[in-house]
């Protein structure tokens, strides 16, 4: 397993993203190719889960687009991801918050994690 991680790190460029976990609200800027043009699009939503480890790790983001929920799964080492920024830290008790899909409106709120300076 160690060899795998070592090789994978060599073959896939390691990116430095901020730490985020399920319940956080993040913005992912990713490149999309339209014909021959390339542009950056942003996707903001709540992280439902982080899955896998190493270069094959993926994460799922859910946002409400009008009345319809939209989920996107990103591989964390995808070369298309430009940047990830954390907008809000959520306080959740689970690593995978699939119950969040059933919540709408006022119920679909996540308490913010507060950090106090020591």
């Amino acid at each position, binding site marked *: 397993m160690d060899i795998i991680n070592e*090789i994978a790190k060599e*073959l896939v460029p390691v990116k430095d993203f901020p730490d985020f976990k399920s319940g956080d609200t993040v913005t992912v800027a990713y490149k999309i190719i339209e014909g021959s043009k390339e542009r950056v699009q942003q996707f903001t939503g709540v992280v439902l889960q982080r899955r896998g480890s190493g270069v094959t790790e993926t994460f799922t983001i859910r946002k409400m687009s009008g009345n319809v929920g939209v989920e996107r799964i990103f591989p964390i080492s995808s070369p298309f991801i430009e940047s990830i920024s954390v907008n809000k830290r959520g306080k959740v008790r689970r690593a995978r918050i699939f119950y969040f899909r059933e919540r709408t409106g006022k119920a679909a709120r996540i308490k913010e994690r507060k950090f106090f300076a020591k």
Partner: protein
Amino acid sequence: MPGIIGRKVGMTSIYSAEGKATPCTVIEAGPCVVTQVKTQEKDGYEAIQLGFGDRKEGSTPSPLKGHFKKANTTPKAKLAEFREFNGSLNLGDIVTADVFQAGDFVDVIGTSKGKGFQGVVKRHGFGGVGQSTHGQHNRLRAPGSIGAASYPARVFKGMRMAGQTGNKQVLISNLEILKVLTDKNLVIVKGSIPGAKGSTVLIKK
């Protein structure tokens, strides 16, 4: 038709220049030692026997010890023959992963993971009976009929039935080599190969 003995390390994925993720298997291939050269005159056919992996001196039978001593090498855990090796190799020569290049298509032979005694649904992909209600109570994954009655009055050979599944030799052909890391003796092939991590595989071009 060069070949090499290797050990499956595991799977990961790498990204192409266009950003496509490709699942791939990492194989530790070689270094192998030529432990025997078989010739037309002596053995009736041409082949190269390679040895891979280390084996304890104490647990090696004496006849094998002598065999390895001839090639001037330490006892090897796994031996395999390869025919029609490119170029002439001599006893004791070392074969490394650089017999392959990225872009080559190879065949990989391994032993699949054992699944034990399995029924026909898992073993042969039968559909089962199809209904779990309407009167049938314990036939959901049954094979159904295995033949006619008084004629032929027997079950034909090769009838697909339940039995040992997996743990047998499997060949996967035409796997593309994505990368060869010669300094680490690693070969990365596209897709999956048979067997568990750490199992021995043969790679043939």
